[in-house]
């Protein structure tokens, strides 16, 4: 019999506990570095400076964080409805196709039309790629986890086929399309005065807007209330008369549309062409980001920032301290996920005891 979980003050739950978990993950990393003969102070300093130490570093951190914010939101919003969307990677892939098809075919349009339409094209294909598993779950009972995983493979294969055989730039040896028209370029933040050479662009603001919109939709509308009821219990949702089939399909479409932000940030913001592998595993990192962010938009943004910093800092670390194996960054990410996600409540009982004593 599990006793009802006792309550901690909100700031402990939302701030102190995650920070302690992060510290624990870094401490274990330090031990592993000691064990492999590296100086943990030097390495962790390189990680910190590399991710936050300069305007360029911060720019890159934000650039990576943008991708993770989009996929984190995608996973989180579906999870509020009790749906585990493993397919953000494939949805972002399909969104890339949508972005490219619009950008390559309507390049005569002015930027003010071309950019929004490219975004819509991406969001449409991303949403479709997620809504089909949603439909299969709602109407046919096919488990969403299985179908979204399978759609990752479908999307990846389709993109390889189309880019290599159909969309490839004439005469090119590498599998990528020709450059989009300049009108499709999203403004870099550096062009708006940020002193950074990083490709961080307007998509960052879009991610912030998306987070606010998700919060409003899920916590401030009757539809969002119904979504959360469904996420807590399908039985209660049935009693309350919530149309679960419709909600499932809609929230999956929304999730896929959010994942399409990766394509906007990468293709319109940085690469300016469609190329293979641009999704870079962000769809899967998004699962960890959502988990760590407690499936709440604010938490997702913070977790995305952390994972963005780890990605950028890790690249710098491998550059600055060549003795540190590059896998160490993956290791740190894994430990963060382990402590902040899977073992997220490990320190709770101890904190409860300490706080309880202090409160008495």
């Amino acid at each position, binding site marked *: *019999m599990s006793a*009802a979980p006792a309550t901690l003050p909100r700031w402990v739950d939302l701030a102190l506990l995650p920070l302690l978990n992060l510290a624990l993950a870094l401490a274990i990393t330090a031990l592993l570095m000691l064990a492999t003969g590296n100086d943990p102070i030097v390495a962790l300093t390189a990680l910190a400076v590399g991710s936050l130490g300069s305007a360029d570093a911060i720019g890159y951190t934000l650039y990576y964080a943008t991708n993770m914010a989009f996929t984190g939101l995608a996973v989180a919003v579906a999870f509020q409805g009790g749906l585990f969307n493993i397919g953000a990677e494939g949805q972002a892939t399909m969104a890339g196709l949508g972005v490219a098809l619009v950008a390559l075919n309507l390049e005569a349009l002015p930027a003010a039309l071309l950019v929004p339409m490219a975004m819509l094209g991406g969001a449409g294909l991303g949403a479709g790629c997620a809504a089909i598993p949603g439909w299969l779950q709602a109407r046919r009972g096919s488990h969403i986890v299985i179908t979204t995983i399978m759609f990752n493979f479908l999307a990846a294969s389709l993109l390889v086929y189309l880019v290599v055989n159909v969309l490839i730039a004439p005469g090119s040896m590498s599998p990528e399309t020709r450059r989009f028209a300049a009108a499709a370029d999203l403004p870099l933040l550096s062009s708006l005065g940020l002193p950074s050479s990083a490709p961080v662009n307007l998509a960052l603001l879009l991610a912030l807007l998306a987070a606010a919109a998700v919060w*409003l939709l899920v*916590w*401030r*509308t*009757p539809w*969002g*209330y*119904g979504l*959360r*009821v469904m996420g*807590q*219990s399908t*039985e*209660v949702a*049935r*009693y*309350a*008369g*919530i*149309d679960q089939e419709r909600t499932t399909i809609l929230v999956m479409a929304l999730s896929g549309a959010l994942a399409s932000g990766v394509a906007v940030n990468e293709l319109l913001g940085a690469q300016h062409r469609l190329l293979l592998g641009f999704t870079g595993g962000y769809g899967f990192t998004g699962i960890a980001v959502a988990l760590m962010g407690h499936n709440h938009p604010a938490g997702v943004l913070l977790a995305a920032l952390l994972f963005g910093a780890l990605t950028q800092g890790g690249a710098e670390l491998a550059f600055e301290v060549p003795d540190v194996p590059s896998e160490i960054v993956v290791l740190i990410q894994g430990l963060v996920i382990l402590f902040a996600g899977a073992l997220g409540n490990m320190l709770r009982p101890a904190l409860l005891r300490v706080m309880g004593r202090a409160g008495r």
Partner: protein
Amino acid sequence: MPPDTVAPAIELRGIDKRFGMVQACRGVDLVVRRGEIHGIVGENGAGKSTLMAILHGFYQADAGDILVHGTPAIIRDSRDAIRLGIEMVHQHFMLVDRLTVLENVLLGAEGGARLAPGAARAVAELARLGDAYGMRVDPHAHIEDLPVGAQQRVEILKALYRGAEILILDEPTGVLTPQEADDLFRVLRALRDRGCTVLLITHKLREIMAVTDRVSVMRAGRMVAHRDTAATSVAELGELMIGRRLAAPPPRPAPRSGPALLEARGLTVRDAAGMERVKGIDLVLRGGEVLGIAGVAGNGQGELLEALAGMRIPSAGEIRLHGRVVFPGRGFNPAALRRQGFAHVPEDRLRSGLLRQASAADTAILGYQNDPAYRGRLGLLSPDGITAHGARLMRDHDVRPGDPALRSALLSGGNQQKLILAREIERDPAVLLVGQPTRGVDIGGIDAIHQRLLACRAAGKAVLVVSVELDEILALADRILVMFEGRFMGELTAAEASEQRLGLLMTGVTQDALT
């Protein structure tokens, strides 16, 4: 044998147990003699389940001593209890549905790395136990294929196979028909005659009178009386349980039979597995009356209620609300029915009726979340409005504690039920369906809920009550339909109904055979 020369099977001295603010047991003393059937009665929350959980190692007492066969015992977990020969048959069976009887009996008592020798021993032992106590069960039958009564026998056999000398049964007759209950009592007497000690926990006083040798009464965590069953009566036990004389129910005014508000014709409903659970029933519910549907749990009442509420699509038949056909038809769903003055308190509030992890205020708008009353600026949900609504509802309906921010799961069962009932009657519905109005609600709460339902009746609403508690049906209903295997066995008016007549109908005896 004279009771005082043999150490009692179980002796409890001064048992205390506290959960947070709640003192579940205080200074409980209990002596259970060897080879007797000892009943423990008390209202919900009187502490009897906690006491049995302490005896079975589920909880540890804060203070007090446990003696088993005269020897002080420390029971830290159920393994300790089993070692001492104490076994428990839970209200909800602890059986693996897909395994056979034999496999269930062997679970945790496999007797070696290879199954076969242990299994052979178990088959022989099961046959011997079955013969000795008159409860033969095919060891190779799958649990899911057995009727409930047989499943319960498997639980008892499992306990005996593991060497139980003291058997605790928690509300064992809740899921049984009266006949199956009689069979159970026969088995319990056989167990007693062969030296087993039986502890029977129940709130049904009639069973206590029928089968026990002695009885102990608990109230508010204390042991308030011990009696020889032969020297007491249902009336005395009832007073001891509640702590005051049972007031006669206030006389009800005759029903003002209003218009037919809800009608069902030829309604057939299948469950999720495709089994036909409601078999072509007809039903008319009028304004100003309470219609009771009685029956042993699992005879299709649940499916009927869900179908009438729009939660389950019937496979045949017709449903009319206010004379208009709502099924078959588009928009037959709970949300659309609610908009037509229909309200529903579900049978299982924890599974369906409330958002356990959300606040009481969130639970108080469940099903009505589209109501513009909860919107604020820009048409967005207004948290302040929802909280204020929750606070008002909790104040008006005496839901305690009246904190709308409290998580719904932390309210007591009675207060959860009051909150759900408040939500459903707040909008002044014409038709109110209520499943198991007072399941898991203590007596004070029962009375409040019954008064609310009778007030709805007086206000001209049509009220349908489904309950497995005959007392409740008799206290509330103007007309009573008895359901058995998906059909109505007969209809009685409140004046005609008695527990005996209803009991017979519940077992499938037709009304014609009664007259």
